[in-house]
């Protein structure tokens, strides 16, 4: 639930998602769910020649299980906050995380 909350706080930001099949997708995070499935809008494939099938795709639903990395801009992430949240361990609830973020 921690990373679900974390990604929810990143909705609207630009990210690059690298998938296990090596495709890199650049786009705006539109929504995320508990399985970390993601919806990216204004999708662009980083390497258009290798993956021509994705040229015409504007919005993509990405299954969470196929994501290898999610590249985030450094200034969007408060790593101290994230580390604190992790240390408080997995029983942390979404409400707690949001409270930490707001204060």
């Amino acid at each position, binding site marked *: 639930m921690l990373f679900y909350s974390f990604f929810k706080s990143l909705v609207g930001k630009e990210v690059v998602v690298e998938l296990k099949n090596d495709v890199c997708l650049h786009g705006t995070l539109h929504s995320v769910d508990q399985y970390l499935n993601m919806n990216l809008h204004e999708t662009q494939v980083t390497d258009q020649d290798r993956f021509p099938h994705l*040229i015409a795709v504007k919005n993509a*639903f990405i299954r969470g299980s196929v994501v290898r990395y999610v590249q985030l801009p450094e200034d969007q992430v408060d790593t101290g906050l994230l580390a604190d949240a992790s240390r408080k361990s997995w029983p942390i609830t979404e409400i707690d995380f949001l409270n930490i973020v707001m204060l």
Partner: protein
Amino acid sequence: MELPDPYLPGAISLLDQLDKKLIVVLRDGRKLIGYLRSIDQFANLILDEVVERTFCDKFYSDIRHGFLLIRGENVVLAGEIDETLDTGLKEITGNEMTMLQEERSRHHNRKHDLPKAEPQRKTKHADMDDAY
């Protein structure tokens, strides 16, 4: 249409794509294009008027499949296609595509000095993702 959270927790973002033409990329590398008719929480998909599109260089070739159910664990991504966008790719027949692919793989093998052609598709191992 908004369903409350307990329903379809894993694929709620696909609800907006119902009855739209999507390209679905599978784990084995196949690309299926069809109209999304139904989904469930595992991202199992029902697609209608499905066409399997193979790409090679600047060409593509289609194989018609009709009505399919795709098990969610095989789905990599599902994207809405913008049909107004010109991809710059040309359609060729199935036979031409087979010949083109053989030629490509023979060329590739000659370059890398392999004894025989590599398989075109790689299957990924099953992952434990469905038990969340």
